[in-house]
């Protein structure tokens, strides 16, 4: 028993259903909402205000249908709002989109020199093993550089062909060993030191020589120190520095300040002893000189040679770094080409 009044409500509903498809953004949604629900002029609001003109026997029916349509419109508007906000939000994010494959905007970070890195690493290993770092002058008395190390005046190492002289009795130190003597002079055993530093030999620069380079030398003097302790210490150091797979081998050699003396080889870090060009297919690479402190040295520093024994060894910082990183020209360290330095 549909009436004209109900028909009008239904046509508003139909109009709403037609129009809502074209509402695409939040602003038109607001207009659309006001078109139906605004308090003064909304189509549905105006229709509802007409209830007083509805014949009384139809009012209940009219009210029920009107509320049903209002609830439906409100629900639809809510859903529409949700849908539009999501779409608009996504569009905003779309507009923010970057080409993340472009390179980052980097700040310049400086690099420590590779020899600083290597020296610190070596120092840290020995400090962890109880050694104290010591240093000394580069301009050194021949007494400390030679005599006190059992290198007498006639020894070829003292030749001005090989050593830079500043005066008859002053040289640029040719090794860091003078620091050992200076330390022993002022300290009683136990002595457990590492002396890193800059040293000089009169070699023209080529791929394997530079007239200036860096050494580190260790000295341990105490009661009961043996050749076995030297072996164990070198093994441990090389495992720390080159990796746990590294083996250490000692071979008899000669140095005036040690007896017995030994050259120290490590298993080739490139082929792990299978043989390659770097190790000349021997599987071993010579890295440093070592030995038990020659008891004659103790006389120079007033140590009791019957009570104390000790060991000493020394290597080149450049050589260790070159081996670790397969660098084949020592001059790179002093050319300071920024393309080299920035790789560390």
């Amino acid at each position, binding site marked *: 028993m549909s009436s004209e009044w109900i028909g009008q409500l239904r046509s508003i509903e139909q109009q709403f259903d037609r129009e809502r498809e074209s509402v695409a953004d939040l602003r038109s949604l607001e207009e659309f909402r006001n078109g139906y629900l605004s308090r003064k002029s909304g189509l549905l609001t105006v229709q509802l205000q007409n209830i007083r003109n509805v014949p009384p026997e139809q009012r209940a029916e009219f009210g029920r249908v009107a509320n049903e349509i209002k609830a439906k419109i409100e629900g639809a508007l809510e859903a529409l709002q949700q849908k539009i906000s999501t779409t608009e939000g996504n569009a905003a994010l779309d507009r923010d989109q970057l080409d993340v494959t472009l390179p980052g905007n980097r700040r310049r970070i400086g690099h420590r020199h590779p020899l600083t890195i290597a020296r610190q690493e070596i120092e840290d290993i020995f400090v962890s*093993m109880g050694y104290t770092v010591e240093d000394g002058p*580069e301009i050194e008395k021949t007494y400390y550089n030679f005599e006190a190390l059992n290198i007498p005046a*006639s020894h070829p190492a003292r030749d001005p062909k090989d050593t830079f002289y500043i005066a008859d009795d002053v040289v640029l130190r040719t090794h860091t060993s003078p620091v050992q003597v200076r330390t022993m002079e002022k300290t009683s055993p136990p002595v457990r030191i590492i002396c890193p530093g800059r040293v000089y030999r009169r070699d023209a620069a080529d791929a394997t020589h530079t007239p200036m380079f860096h050494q580190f030398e260790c000295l341990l003097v105490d009661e009961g120190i*043996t050749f*076995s302790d030297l072996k164990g210490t070198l093994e441990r150091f090389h495992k720390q520095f080159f990796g746990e797979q590294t083996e250490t081998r000692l071979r008899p050699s000669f140095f005036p300040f040690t007896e017995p003396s030994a050259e120290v080889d490590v298993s080739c870090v490139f082929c792990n002893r299978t043989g390659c060009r770097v190790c000349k297919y021997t599987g071993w690479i010579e890295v440093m000189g070592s030995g*038990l402190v020659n008891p004659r040295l103790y006389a120079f520093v007033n140590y009791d040679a019957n009570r104390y024994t000790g060991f000493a060894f020394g290597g080149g910082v450049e050589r260790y770094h070159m081996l670790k990183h397969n660098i084949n020209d020592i001059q790179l360290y002093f050319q300071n080409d*920024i393309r080299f330095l920035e790789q560390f």
Partner: protein
Amino acid sequence: MKISYNWLKEFVDIGVDAPTLARELTNVGLALESLDELEGDSVLDLDVTTNRPDCLSHLGVAREVSAIHGLALRKPQFKLKEGSKLGSEVVSISIEDAELCGRYCGRVVSGVKIGPSPDWLKKRLEAVGMRSINNVADITNYVMMELGHPLHAFDAAKLEGRQIIVRSAALDEKLTTLDGVEHELNPSILVIADAKKPVALAGIMGGAESEITNTTTSILLESAHFSSASIRKTARTLGMSTEASYRFERGADIEMASLACDRAAAMIQELAGGETLRGMIDVYPRKPKPVRVMLRRDRIPAVLGAPVDSDIVHRIFERLELKPAGAAQGWTVEIPTFRVDLAGEEDLLEEIARHHGFDKFPATLPPSRSFGSLLPQEARIRRLRNTLSGAGYSEIYTYSFSNEEMERRFYPDIEPVRLRNPLSEEATILRTSLIPGMLSTVQWNLNRGARNLQMYELSKVYWSGGERRTVILCGCGNLKSANVHEPPREFDFFTLKGDIEELFEEFDTPMRLTTDNIPKYYHPGRFARIGHLALFGELHPAYAEPFKFRQRVYLAEIDLDMLLASSEGRQIDAIPRYPAIRRDFSLLFDRGTQYAAVQRTIAGAGIPELVRVKPFDRMDSGPFPETKYSLSISVVYQSTERTLTDAEVDAFDKKLLKNLEERLGAQLRT
């Protein structure tokens, strides 16, 4: 030292192949340099350490092999037939200074026929790297390679007065040696002379005049022993090094002289004919007394780390021809004359260690009785390096040597340390500053296409009184290059100054900036100093010119000791609880007014709540007179006790502006 595998087998029955032998010799201290395969032979080039002249011969190396394998050593066997005439009737020998020549053995062989050597002899010498000359010269070389003792053969007919005198040269004497070089002699040089003149440089090389030639028929063989120090000195003075001098410098075996002499005479008879005159002329003023060294048994484990069986010790000594005798606590060992390196107990321990095998001793770590530590300043220096890395500076290491002219450009007043024997004229002194090294490094990199650099060096400089560490910073080009994200930013004076401020703050050092005493190498308008602690600014264009820099280069020299003297335990401020209030002003100042004056005046207003002042804009032209410039400043007030009121802050502003007006004539822009 080149060793022929076949030759070695004459002295010891080697049961292993050449590569195995090479490994074994390396393990006893004769490191293999190279192994060459020749036709039917192998040549081992061994690195013989300077203390082992006894191994500069096949017999010596064979002795080591005999000790390694416990095999018998065969000495060379030969027969020498002597004639009836006495050699000493033909030649007389005398030594003037027994210190320099401890022994001189001579033999005369007459009626020899000089000619080429047989092929086997040539091959042997070639295998060990020697050239064949003639049969007699080759024999002397052969015996040297066999027994290790250098020999020389004179043409006896050319020795005036049939005399040999070992003496120091006279001041005006000259000698032309076998290599054709004429030497001016002096009394520090030991020579072999005849009645009139020098005929050989003792222990180094013979003279050309008394050389063996094809017409030689009578020869005098010399087998002598010379002091190593004297030979080394002469060889160095004359710039000569021969197989003979190499051996005498290291120490030849004085007892071997006679055997070597007889061995050579016997070979000459065999290969060049002739007759050896009767009796060796053996002038031997200094026969050495036997040297005995004590070895205590308990020192073996105490020094080497593990005991070694007494039988093994005894065997090692015997095979090395050391003569051990049992003593109460160990052994007394008689040292043969060929082992010039053995003098103390530690030397005998080494013999045991190397022949028992270094690998037989276990690897242990010494007990820890101490704690380790870095150098006292190392922690601060590492902090400094980190700060510099963070600010973009990469570290360089340059040579300590430098060019004096270059150094003096920057520090003309420092007396440099001079090298007596520099490697080149470009590097005669030790550097007095880090500037030339840094600028050369910048140049190196610019020449290789780099444009934007930030580098530092932390290293020593030297002067006649000592050496100390210092730091230099350098920057040029762009701080940040242009990229897809933003335009470039130049490294400028204020970039450098900002980095220095960062460093001074990191090391809690106050900055008191002045612009006095400008060193000549800095741009006078772009320089500042903080007392003696830091000098920084742009390199003066005139000083940049020799380096061909096409861009501004900035330098900072910083006193490292100052940074290192700062304290480690820094006082940390609490975070303020009350809000800070910022006020901005734009002010006009007279053009000569420096910011430092503005800052001082603001600080002088006496407002404890003023915590920060920062200039944020500067305009040198605008809607104001040309004699003025505009500076915008922000000031921040904050109390540690309460929130400041607007009225209080207004009063601060007023006070501050009044100060600026009265003292600097500042005008507030509105």
